[in-house]
């Protein structure tokens, strides 16, 4: 396997991380049942299943960096909701650790946890989770009310958030009067009201119609360009994951089977399962020139192209007969060369032995 030209995720510090995280349902665990360090997680999972327990999350480890959009992708039952709830401590994991800003979140006392949630975390839910008895303004102001802010303070902040998500004029509406898209805007505004650093989104757009979903994804990216949150985003939709993610973790039956950029998953899938997922994705919109460029600078006179351009941008030139591109370093990508034949092979998913997949 040839190393990717894509630089490793930035030098940003780690915001939240988990290591060897296990969530187990079923009868209470006995003391002798614990995952041995360095042992195969599958062995421990077998031991659990043999005693009538269900490992919903097995040995999950990853780090999310500041300002990164980290997407956890998996089908229903893969454990993605369990994973995000372990990170927020809505449920407690049995084994492993979760660190927020380097501090052990699993050891946080109830009082500390409430303070962390009040100031550092925001969360958006698949089914919105709006308070049915509160109007839009009060729903958005709800976290601030819990903190004990005065009515004028919290309403001023809530109004800001409402205008941020474009719901001005609907402040007095009750949730059931709103469309699904509007309800989720309220959910987003509420989760941002406390100005958290860390933003959890649990399948935020899955309950919406496809057209609305696309629009909300665009707005979400737009918000993130302005706010620079650290984001953990859950979805079952690979297209959504590839559109939004800096990095994606693929979850299957409670285990993370691959973590990588969308291009990594596309070009170097860890196994057939991941490959099957990415088969439906159009590579030209996901891949950047730098993702598929080859090292070297010998092609003088070739057409020059910036490495952070989408591969799509090359197609017009290829159609008019260009055969070689000189890739210029841009953003996190280095320079190199790229032949039209290679572009077409990759788009046709006929990778030539020199490439991993």
């Amino acid at each position, binding site marked *: 396997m040839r190393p990717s030209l894509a630089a490793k995720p930035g030098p940003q510090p780690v915001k939240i991380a988990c290591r060897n995280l296990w969530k187990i349902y079923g009868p209470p665990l006995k003391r002798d049942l614990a995952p041995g360090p360095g042992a195969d997680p599958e062995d421990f999972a077998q031991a659990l299943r043999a005693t009538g327990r269900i490992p919903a999350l097995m040995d999950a480890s990853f780090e999310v960096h500041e300002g990164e959009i980290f997407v956890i992708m998996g089908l229903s039952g893969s454990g993605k909701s369990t994973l995000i709830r372990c990170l927020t401590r809505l449920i407690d994991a049995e084994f492993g650790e979760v660190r927020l800003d380097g501090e052990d979140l699993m050891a946080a006392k109830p009082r500390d946890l409430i*303070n962390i949630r009040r100031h550092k975390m925001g969360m958006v*839910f698949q089914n919105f989770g709006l308070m*049915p*008895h509160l109007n839009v303004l009060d729903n958005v102001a*709800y*976290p601030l009310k*819990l903190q004990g802010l005065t009515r004028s303070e919290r309403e001023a902040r809530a109004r800001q958030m409402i205008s941020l998500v474009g719901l001005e004029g609907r402040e007095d509406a009750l949730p059931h009067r709103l469309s699904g898209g509007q309800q989720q805007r309220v*959910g987003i505004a509420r989760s941002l009201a*406390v100005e958290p650093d860390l933003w959890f989104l649990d399948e935020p757009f899955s309950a919406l119609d496809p057209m609305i979903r696309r629009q909300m994804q665009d707005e979400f990216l737009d918000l993130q360009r302005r706010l620079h949150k650290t984001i953990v985003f859950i979805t079952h939709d690979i297209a959504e994951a590839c559109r939004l993610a800096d990095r994606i973790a693929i979850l299957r039956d409670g285990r993370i089977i691959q973590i990588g950029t969308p291009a990594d998953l596309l070009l170097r899938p860890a196994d057939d399962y991941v490959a099957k997922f990415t088969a439906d994705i159009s590579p030209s919109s996901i891949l950047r020139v730098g993702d598929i460029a080859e090292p070297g600078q010998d092609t003088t006179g070739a057409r020059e192209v910036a490495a952070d351009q989408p591969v799509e941008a090359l197609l017009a030139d290829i159609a008019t007969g260009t055969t070689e591109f000189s890739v210029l370093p841009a953003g996190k990508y280095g320079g190199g060369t790229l032949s039209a034949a290679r572009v077409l092979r990759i788009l046709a998913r006929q990778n030539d032995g020199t490439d991993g997949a």
Partner: protein
Amino acid sequence: MMSRLRLSGTALWSLALFVCLALVLLAPLLPWIAAFPRDLQLPLADWANLVLNPVFSTLQPLGRGFASGIDIPLRWLRDFLLFVPWPAFAFLLFLVALRMAGPGFAVFAMVTQIYIVAVGYWPQTMNTFAIVLLSLPPAILIGFALGAAGHRWPRLEGPLTALLDLMQTFPAFAYLIPLLIVFGFGPAAGMIASVIFAIPPMARNTIVGLREVPVVTLEAAVMSGATPTQLFWTAKLPAAARQLLVGVNQTTMASLSMVIIVAIIGGFNDIGWEVLSAMRSAELGRSLLAGVVIVALAVTLDRITRALATGSPNGVQLLPDRALAAVLGVVLCLAVVLRLALPGLDLLPPGVGFATAKALDAQLLDFVRWSDPVFSALRDALNYGVILPLRIGFAASASPMVWGFTLQPWMIAVYCIAIAGTALLLFRRPAWALLALFAGLVCYTGLAQFPWPCVVIIALLGAAQVRGLGLVAVVLIATLMILLSGMWQPFVQSLYLTAIAVSICVVIGGMIGIAAAENDRVSRIVRPISDTLQTLPQFVFLIPALMLFRVGEFTALIAIVLYAIVPPIRYVEHGLRGVPGHLTEAAVQMGANRWQLLRDVKLPLAGPAIRLGINQTIMYAISMLVIAALVGTRDLGQQVYVALGNANSGLGFVSGLSIALLAIIADRMLRKS
């Protein structure tokens, strides 16, 4: 696995059948089988008295003090309600009704107020209303607290549910006895009984409401940084509000029902007492007039409190709610000031009611005399054809006294062949065949003569099969208590009265329910009627039954049926209409006709709802037993009633507990987990 279990069940039941048959045949030879030996009976009621009476007399000073304490606000409230001139009250009610349930209901409320004044029952109505009003806050608060505790500590929920079951099924007359001893005759005892009876619906709805708050709402609140206390008050409680208000509605109706019932102790000049005393002196007109007042009161309270829970979709909002409250306050103050200025101004027309009642009485008597042949014929037909045979059995019914001929051996042979033939026809469904054989056996001897060990065996086996050892223990304790206390005969009377009433209700109510599910026009007619029947205090159902059929067991049966027929109607319709459209569409597409659709698709799918309906019917019927005892039965209800008359706490306790256990066992057997 499944089939083996069923097979062993069949084998077990077959064995039980043979044992029962043997016992029936042996009964004439062994008297202890026919009747539980008297020597073995224990004076349980006296023992209960020995324990209970000292406790009650110790509590007495405390209770009496408490009663006089309650008496003060109650008297104030009654005096105040009577002090406000009735037109002002009626106007206030009109405004509230308009806001809560729309113009149609507002007019209804207004008209009923005028009616109440016209028939001369205004003071009695206000007295009843005052007791209900005063018993509501404690019932709601205690119910809410119990429910919240049951939700907070899930381990409490089991015992709590058992306690609530007991509070709702233990006949009020039975716990009225100790209340009377401790708190003395007076409204306080009635009020406390009403509170006890009205707590369970609030507690149950609180538990359900809090439990059914969506998880995502709670997660959202937790992630917003809610402390456990904030989580309860700002997320759970508001999200459960609708269900809590349903609880308030049900609690209000339960309270009213009980206030009417406890009128039996007399002495607070309320509307329930009016009906009761009219019935006792056979003044049909007066009891009808007063009964209508109760109906009006019940419907009004129900519609207003129900609108709280449904968010009054039909209500007309003329003014913002605060302005409306201000208007109500001002009108009330004006009325009070006016009355203070003119003390004689009660505006109640004197003596109207009495004359109306007399006139109505005469007309009703005429009607009853004129219609008597029809109703007598109906009563006799059912009496001789169904009730007596079920009680004394085919063997005794086929006598010159009852059916006009003597029992010949060939008749018994024909009977046996018919039963055996039915069972053979059903051989593919062993459970049904066994049921037919058991029914044949019971109908031969009659329930009253059916050997008690057989009843015990059947009950224990049923309990073991449906629910396991826990229920077996309850059945064992209940049967032992009933046998030892010598209440077997009254118990069997209760059993067969309930069985007949429930059968009638399920057949007739089920048919009405099917008709309502299949036909929208029928549904539109039936629904408001069953809604109304459901809100009425149990007491009211005695009035028409008594009018048409006079005192007797049959009248009691009719009253029970009238009260308990609503659940099958509702649940059958609800269940049938709840069958998913795509399933009926699929069946129609495959060529099912209407009858096939009903039999093969809708009824099986509506099964759970229908079973719940039958369960409710049994509960309703059993709770009506004690009330029906007022018009003459010989069952456990009568025992409770007798105990009340003699202030015999022990007898009340034992017979009341028997009824409660009967209800709880029936409930557990039907409510498969």
